[in-house]
């Protein structure tokens, strides 16, 4: 890696360093947690924000993009809580809601009642003060190289949710972690969550990010996902932040043998978004699926950077990313599949497709394969293109107006990926959301 440590030097980096220093003594937690924060803080002091000469951040140069630092968000007042409630992206669905507003867990919007047997949910803030056993699991999963977003998140580690689905437990109702920002002035939030899925357990978790438009807030979240052997687990993600927000998000996943896992990230929000996923196939015969969709317009910048680590033999992974780019938007997909020497019989396929609706939109697709085993099947494909004029003519010739024809074609393009969401309610709600996005384009 061509990471060159550089001393903290930009004003943004200085402001972040001061903010870390000022919080240092105030944040709760035992010695181990404090040590974790310290380590993250010093790595940030050492390396600062990433810039374009760091390969993983080449297209999302945070040093250039993060011009200033918003103050740390305070816990929300009742008004903000009321506002946050309206931001729930799935109000009609029967989900167990765990709601963070401005990065603080809000019990009155959340449902911690009647937890099924084998399901444990605690807030990180509470766990840090009472030394809950799940706090020891935080930080077990690490990014391969220094990651500034994760380091900052860890340095401010403070609130979020910790979930454990015990061995053999099947949770019937999906858990919905909501990250809402509901202030009228910009602020920075840091949320840290952990989901531990025991062996043979089964469940669905959806994490959503929402906030008011027009406010340049900064949302930094990190979620660790540990999936046990034989488990079946689905993780859905909706990033629908406000249109002026900077969204930095890290998802670290480790999967045990024979498990089945699917990840469906949908992106429609934020001004600048960086979603970094590290997916480690840590056991044999795992089936993993990553099916994402990005709907971007105006000057939105959305970067999805995925590293899949096939460490063990006999695993299969499928990745499909569909990105629709309108106006001056910019979509980035970097996907790296690493097949370690032991990971024989790996079957990994990655496809990324971009649909450009404007001459000014930009699509960057960077698939990479690093293969160290000799008996594997790996493939990748990337396309970028406009709507097919011949197909559009077929619609027009049937009396369908152009905008409507375009909407049908765009819908079918993204639906291919959204339809891979296994949970019926979430799939339908997200398809509808895609249609809402299209309807805004038509009006």
């Amino acid at each position, binding site marked *: 890696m061509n990471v060159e440590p550089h001393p903290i030097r930009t004003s943004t980096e200085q402001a972040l360093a001061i903010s870390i220093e000022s919080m240092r003594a105030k944040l709760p937690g035992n010695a181990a947690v404090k040590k974790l924060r310290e380590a993250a803080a010093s790595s940030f002091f050492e390396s600062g924000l990433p810039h374009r000469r760091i390969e993983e951040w080449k297209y999302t140069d945070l040093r250039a993009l993060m011009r200033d630092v918003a103050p740390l968000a305070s816990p929300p007042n009742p008004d903000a809580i009321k506002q946050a409630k309206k931001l729930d992206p799935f109000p009609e669905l029967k989900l167990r809601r765990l709601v963070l507003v401005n990065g603080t867990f809000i019990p009155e919007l959340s449902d911690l009642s009647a937890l099924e047997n084998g399901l444990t949910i605690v807030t990180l803030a509470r766990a840090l003060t009472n030394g809950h056993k799940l706090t020891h699991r935080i930080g077990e999963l690490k990014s391969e190289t220094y990651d500034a977003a994760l380091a900052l998140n860890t340095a401010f580690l403070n609130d979020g949710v910790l979930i454990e689905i015990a061995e053999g437990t099947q949770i019937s109702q999906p858990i919905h972690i909501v990250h809402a920002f509901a202030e009228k002035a910009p602020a920075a939030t840091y949320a840290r969550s952990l989901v531990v899925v025991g062996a043979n357990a089964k469940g669905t978790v959806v994490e959503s990010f929402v906030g008011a438009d027009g406010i340049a807030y900064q949302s930094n979240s990190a979620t660790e996902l540990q999936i046990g052997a034989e488990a079946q687990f689905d993780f859905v993600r909706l990033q629908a932040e406000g249109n002026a927000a900077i969204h930095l998000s890290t998802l670290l996943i480790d999967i045990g043998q024979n498990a089945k896992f699917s990840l469906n990230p949908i992106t429609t929000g934020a001004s600048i978004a960086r979603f970094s996923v590290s997916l480690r196939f840590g056991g044999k015969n795992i089936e993993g699926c990553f099916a994402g969709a990005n709907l971007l317009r105006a000057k939105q910048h959305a970067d999805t950077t995925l590293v899949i680590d096939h460490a063990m033999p006999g695993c299969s992974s499928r990745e499909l990313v569909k990105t629709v780019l309108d106006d001056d938007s910019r979509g980035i997909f970097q996907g790296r599949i690493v097949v370690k020497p032991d990971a024989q019989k790996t079957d990994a396929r990655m496809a990324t497709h971009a649909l450009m609706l404007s001459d000014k939109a930009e699509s960057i697709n960077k698939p990479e394969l690093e293969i160290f085993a000799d008996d594997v099947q790996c493939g990748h494909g990337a396309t970028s293109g406009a709507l097919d004029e011949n197909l559009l*003519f*077929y*619609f027009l010739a049937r*009396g*369908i107006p152009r905008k*409507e024809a375009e909407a049908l074609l765009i819908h079918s393009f993204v639906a291919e990926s959204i339809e891979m969401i296994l949970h019926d309610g979430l799939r339908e709600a997200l398809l509808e959301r895609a249609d809402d996005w299209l309807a805004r384009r038509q009006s």
Partner: protein
Amino acid sequence: MPLLEVKNLHAEINGKKILNGLTLSVEPGRVHAIMGPNGSGKSTLSYILAGKKDYEVTSGSVSFLDRDLLALSPDERATLGLFLAFQYPLEIPGVTTMTFLRTAVNSVRKRRGESEFLTPDFLRLVREKAASLNIDPEMLKRAVNVGFSGGEKKRNEILQMALLEPKLCVLDETDSGLDIDALKIVAEGVNRLRSPNRSFIVITHYQRLLNHIVPDIVHVMAKGRIVKSGGVELAHELEAKGYAAFEQAA
């Protein structure tokens, strides 16, 4: 008053002249056949009537229902009552046939000032029309034309035609790629739609189709214009003598 009046139409694509002064008048309720060799401009004529923008009309005029057809967008033409059955119907992955049909019919009805169909009524109507064309209802749930056989694609075109209730149907080599059974089903579907208020332009290479859809008038097209018109006997003459004589005449 003719339904369609094409006058001295000249058109080209990428600087290549395809139509060279084509004149054609279609009265309501009439079935016209246009026959001609490959490259004579038959498909170009159908695309220009439907409004495909790859072609440039350099001179001449087309009026349809007394409107300047060339000034209208393709969807406005379809709304007004012009229907093109494609020679090669396109495949649309991800859009089911039913959604496609419902969107088309309702947007046309809305703009014609008619009420939109409610879903149950529409489903009933489509199933009924599909059955008369031997279309498997399962096909309606599949993406438009994806994985359809040649015959299924052409029957799907006729289904769309039946649902959109056009005033002028242009059938571009609807017989190509069809075996004799499929040809009969398609021809019967077309014949059922014949009415005093609906006209047809049947473009074909071979006389075979015209045994099943019997035209009122037959035109021979060569080198971008109509070189001879006559009754159905002209089609027989063509089948016997071939196009060569007409091409020389053009």
